[in-house]
C-alpha cells in the first residue's frame, strides 16, 4: 500500500479493530492506541527518507477514480507546504495518548477511537489534492472533535461543543457551495469534469465571481484559524475540551485554516487575494494585538493559552497575506512551531489540572519549588512560545515579520509589538505560578510530572530546540513548493505583487537560494539584507 494511503487508513482501521475490544481492558485499549499512532508516526518518517528536495510539485502521489462521472478522484499528494503539517499530526497523536494515559477514566475506548478517526481526517485533509476529497476529510474531523469536547469536556462542554461545531460548519457549508461552483466553471473551461486542484488552479474567473468565491473560501478558513472577529468559539472550545482535545485542536486543527489559505485561496483566487490582502492583514494584526491583550488579563491558565493561540495564529495569516517568500515560509514554520509550543503548553496545563483540579493563576504560586522538573518543561515551552532566540518560535516570527516588512511595513511594526506583549503575558504567567513563596498550602505537596508526561514532552522540546538552532532542515523541504506558489500567484496578469516585491522570477530564485545562510546562522544580518531581488 502506498505510504500516504497507509497513513490515512491505518488509524481508522485500528479504530474499527478497537471497537471489538472488551470495555474493561483499559490498558490494552490505551496501549493499542499508543502503539498504532506510534507506528503511524514511524511510517510517516518514511516521507522524509524518500523526499525529493528539489521538487516543487506533489510527491508520493496517488490517483484513483472515485466518483468518476463527476471527475472526483481519490488523489493524494504531498509537497513542501503540507509535509511538516502531516508529520506534526502524526507526532502529536501518540503524544496525546501518552500524556493522557492516566487522565481518561470515562469511556477510554471511545476516546481512543475518536482520536484515531481524527488522525485519519487530519492527515487526509493535508494530503488530499482533490477538492471534494479535501472537503470530506475537512468535515470528517469535526464529528470526533465535537464528541471529544462534548463527552470528555469540562463543565460547560455542551455549549462549547455545539458552538465549535456550528461556527465551523457554517463556514464550510458555504465553502462547499463555492467548491461546486468552481468545479462547474472549471468543467466548462476544461471540457471535462474535474475537482483536482492542479486542474482547477488555472480556472479563469470573472472578477465578481472570483471575489464571491474568495470570500466563501476565506470565511471557512478564517473561522477555522480563527481570525478576529470570528475567534469567539476558540476560547470556549479550548477551555472545555479535555487536554488531548486541546492539543489536537490547537496543534493541528487550527492549521487547517492557514493551510487552506495557502493551498486553495491564494492560488485559486490570486487577484482577489491581492485585492483583499489588506483586509486580512488588518484583521490578523488586530487579532495579534487583541489576543495578546485579552490573554494578559485571563485568570485561567488554559484560557490564557487559548487567547495566545489567537495571537500567534494571527502571525501565520499575516505571513500568508504579506505574500513574500520569506513570510510564507515563516508562516508555515510558525504553524509547526505553534503546534509544538502551544501543544506543549496545553499538555502542561493539563498535567497540573489533573493534580490540583484548578487552572486559576490565583491558586498557584511558588510551585517551582515543589515541581522542579515540571517547571523546567513549562518554562521551555513558554520561552519557545514567546520567541526566545535559539528556540523555534523566534525563527518563525522573525521570518514572518521580516517578510511582511517588505510589503506591509506598518503591519509588521504593529505586529512586532505582539511579540513583546506575548513576552509580557507568558512570563507573567510563569512568575505567578512558579516563582515567589508558596502561597497556597495545598500546593506544598503536588507530585511532580510523571514518566509518561515526561516522555510526551521530550520530543516536543527536542524539536523546539532543533527548529530554533537549525531551521534549514525544515525550510529546505518547503522552499521549492513555496517558490512554486509564488510563481502561481505572481504570474497572474495584473499581479502587482511582482512589482511590489521588486523582483522578477529569476531574482527571487537567486535570492532564495542563498537564503538559508542569510536566515539561519547569523540572526542580525537578515534584517538589513533585502532578500528577494533587492536590486530594485
Amino acid at each position, binding site marked *: 500500500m502506498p505510504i500516504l494511503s497507509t497513513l490515512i487508513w491505518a488509524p481508522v482501521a485500528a479504530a474499527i479493530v478497537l471497537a471489538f475490544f472488551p470495555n474493561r481492558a483499559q490498558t490494552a485499549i490505551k496501549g493499542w492506541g499508543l502503539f498504532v499512532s506510534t507506528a503511524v508516526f514511524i511510517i510517516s518518517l518514511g516521507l522524509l527518507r524518500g523526499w525529493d528536495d528539489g521538487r516543487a510539485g506533489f510527491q508520493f502521489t496517488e490517483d484513483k477514480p*472515485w466518483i468518476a*462521472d463527476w471527475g472526483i478522484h481519490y488523489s493524494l499528494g504531498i509537497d513542501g507546504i503540507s509535509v511538516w503539517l502531516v508529520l506534526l499530526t502524526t507526532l502529536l497523536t501518540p503524544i496525546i495518548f501518552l500524556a493522557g494515559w492516566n487522565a481518561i477514566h470515562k469511556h477510554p475506548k471511545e476516546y481512543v477511537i475518536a482520536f484515531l478517526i481524527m488522525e485519519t481526517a487530519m492527515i487526509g485533509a493535508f494530503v488530499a489534492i482533490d477538492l471534494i476529497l479535501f472537503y470530506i476529510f475537512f468535515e470528517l474531523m469535526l464529528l470526533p472533535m465535537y464528541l471529544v469536547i462534548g463527552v470528555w469536556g469540562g463543565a460547560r462542554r455542551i455549549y462549547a*461543543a*455545539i458552538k465549535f461545531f456550528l461556527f465551523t460548519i457554517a463556514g464550510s*457549508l458555504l465553502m462547499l457551495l463555492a467548491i461546486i461552483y468552481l468545479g462547474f466553471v472549471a468543467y466548462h473551461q476544461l471540457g471535462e469534469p474535474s475537482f483536482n486542484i492542479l486542474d482547477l488552479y488555472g480556472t479563469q474567473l470573472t472578477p465578481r465571481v472570483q471575489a464571491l468565491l474568495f470570500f466563501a473560501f476565506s470565511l471557512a478558513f478564517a473561522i477555522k484559524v480563527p481570525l478576529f472577529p470570528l475567534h469567539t468559539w476558540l476560547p470556549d472550545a479550548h477551555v472545555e475540551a479535555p487536554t488531548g482535545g486541546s492539543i489536537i485542536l490547537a496543534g493541528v486543527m487550527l492549521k487547517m485554516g492557514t493551510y487552506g489559505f495557502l493551498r486553495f485561496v491564494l492560488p485559486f483566487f490570486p487577484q482577489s487575494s491581492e485585492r483583499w490582502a489588506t483586509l486580512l492583514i488588518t484583521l490578523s494584526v488586530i487579532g495579534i494585538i487583541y489576543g495578546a491583550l485579552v490573554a494578559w488579563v485571563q485568570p485561567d491558565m488554559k484560557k490564557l493559552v487559548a487567547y495566545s493561540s489567537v495571537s500567534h495564529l494571527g502571525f501565520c495569516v499575516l505571513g500568508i497575506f504579506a505574500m513574500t517568500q520569506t513570510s510564507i515560509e515563516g508562516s508555515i514554520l510558525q504553524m509547526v512551531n505553534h503546534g509544538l509550543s502551544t501543544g506543549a503548553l496545553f499538555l502542561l496545563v493539563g498535567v497540573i489540572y489533573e493534580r490540583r483540579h484548578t487552572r486559576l493563576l490565583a491558586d498557584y504560586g511558588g510551585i517551582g519549588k515543589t515541581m522542579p522538573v515540571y517547571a523546567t518543561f513549562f518554562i521551555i515551552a513558554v520561552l519557545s512560545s514567546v520567541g526566545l532566540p535559539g528556540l523555534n518560535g523566534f525563527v518563525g516570527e522573525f521570518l514572518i515579520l521580516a517578510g511582511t516588512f517588505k510589503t506591509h511595513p506598518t503591519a509588521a511594526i504593529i505586529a512586532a509589538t505582539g511579540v513583546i506583549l506575548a513576552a509580557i503575558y507568558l512570563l507573567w504567567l510563569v512568575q505567578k505560578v512558579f516563582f515567589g513563596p508558596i502561597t497556597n498550602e495545598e500546593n506544598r505537596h503536588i507530585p511532580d510530572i510523571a514518566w509518561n508526561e515526561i516522555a510526551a514532552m521530550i520530543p516536543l522540546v527536542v524539536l523546539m530546540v532543533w527548529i530554533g538552532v537549525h531551521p534549514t532542515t525544515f525550510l529546505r523541504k518547503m522552499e521549492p513548493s513555496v517558490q512554486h506558489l509564488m510563481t502561481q500567484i505572481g504570474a497572474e496578469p495584473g499581479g502587482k505583487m511582482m512589482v511590489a516585491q521588486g523582483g522578477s522570477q529569476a531574482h527571487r530564485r537567486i535570492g532564495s537560494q542563498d537564503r538559508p545562510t542569510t536566515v539561519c546562522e547569523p540572526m542580525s544580518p537578515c534584517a538589513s539584507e533585502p532578500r528577494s531581488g533587492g536590486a530594485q
Partner: protein
Amino acid sequence: MTLHPLLEPGWQLAVLPELILSGGGMLLILFDAFLPRAKSALAPLALIVFIATTWSERLFVQGGTYFGGTYEISPITMIFDLTFLLAGMLALLFARDYLDREGIEGGEFYALLMWGTVGMMMMAKGLDLLLIILGLEILSICIFVLVGYHRRMPVSNEASLKYFLMGAFATGFILYGTALFYGATESTNINTMARWFATTTQTTPLLTIAFVLLMSGFGFKLALAPFHPWAPDVYQGAPTPVAGWLSVAPKAATLIALVRLFNAMGPVLPKVSWMNMVATLAILSMIVGNSVAIVQRDLKRMLAYSGIAHVGYMMIAMLTVREESVAAVAVYTIVYALMNIGAFGVVSLLMKNENDPHTLDDIAGLGFRRKFFGFALALCMFSLSGLPPTAGFISKFFIFKTAIESGHTTVALIGILTSIVSVYYYLRVVYFLYMKEPAEGYEISSAGGVFAVGALTIAVAGILAIGLYPTPLFQAAGNAARALLQQ
C-alpha cells in the same frame, strides 16, 4: 391469445411484482385468520414476499409500455420500485419487534404495507394521470389504516382521522386539476399531453389553475410547506415504524409522478412562471421545516419537520428536469429511505412505550448503554444533516451540484444556509445520546430483537457504503434518468 386489445403480450410479467405483493398480502391475512397462534411466522413470511417481489424485478431487463400505453416499465421505475421495496422491508423489520412489544401484531399490518407498496408502484409506472390517482388512492387507504393501526391509542386514531380528512381533500384537488388538464389538453395520458405541450407556445389561465390545483394536492402528499401542518401530528400519532415508512415512500412515489408531469410540460415551463411557484414551495419548506424543527422536543415531530425540509431539498433538483436532476432525486429518495426509516426505527426501539411523547430526554445517555442503536441513530443524524462521509452528504452534494449547474444558485444558497440551521437540531440528538446522563429510574425498552438489528444493519451499511462509494448507484440512476428523458 390476446384477451383484449389493451392487454399486450407479456403483461403478466409486467405486473408480476404487483401481483406477488397483492397475493402475498391476501395470503398473510388468511394465514393469520386460520392460524392465529402462529403470529411469529407472519413477519418472516412477509419478508419472504418482499424478497420474492424484489427478485421478480430482475425479470425485466428491458422495458416497454403496457395496457394501451398507460403503464411503463423502465429502468427508472425499477429504481423506484426497489426504493419502495427497501422502504417496505425496513418498515416491516422495525415493525415486527415494535408490534410484538405493543401486543398488536396481525397479518393485516403486513398486508397493508404490501398493498400500499403496490399503490406506489402504480404511481411510479403510471403514464396516465388517472392511473397515478388510482395508485395514490390505493396507497392512501392503506396509510389511513396503518396510521390508525394502534387501535387502543387515541392519538393514533386522531392521526388517522386527520390524515383521512385532509388527504381526501388533497385528492379532490388532484382530481380537479386533472379534469382541468383534460379540458385543456384533451388527454390525461402523459405522453399525449407531452405532445400537446410541445406544440403550444402559450398557456391559458385554465392550465395555470390546473397546475396550481395539482401542485396543491401533490404538495400535500409531499408535505411541502405550506401544505405541511398535517405531517407532525400524523407522524406523532402513527405507530413509529409506520411514521418512518410514511415519511419516505409516499414522497418518493409522488416525486416520480411529478417528474413525469414536469417532463411532459418541459417545453412550456421556461415560458411561464410555474417553476417560480415550485421554487417558492421548496424555499418555504426548507425554511419552515428547519426552523420549526429546532423548537421540537418530541423526536417524531422533529423528524417530521426535518422531513418537510428534506422534500424542500429534493424539490430544488426538480426545478429543472434534466438527466442529472432526475438522477439526483432518485438517489436522494433511496438515501432518505435508509436514513429516515433508520432514525424512526431506532426511536421506536428506544422508547419504552408508545403512549407518552417521544421526548429527547428519553434517549438521554443511551448512546453508551445500547451502543449499536446509539451509533446507528447518531449516524442517521449525521447523514440527515449532510455530513461526510455518509450517504446524506453525497446525495445533498448531488442536489446542490445539479441546482448550480441548472442556474438555481440562489435557491441552492438558501438550501445551504438552512442546512446550517438543521445541523443544530440533528446534533442535539447526538448530544442527548452521548453527553447527557440517563434520567432517574429509566428502564431500557424491551424491543430490539434480531429483526430490528437486521434492519439497522442494512440502514447503517447502506448509509456508509453509498457515502464511501456512490459510483454504482449514481451510474444506475443516471442511466435510468437518461432512459426516462429520451422518450
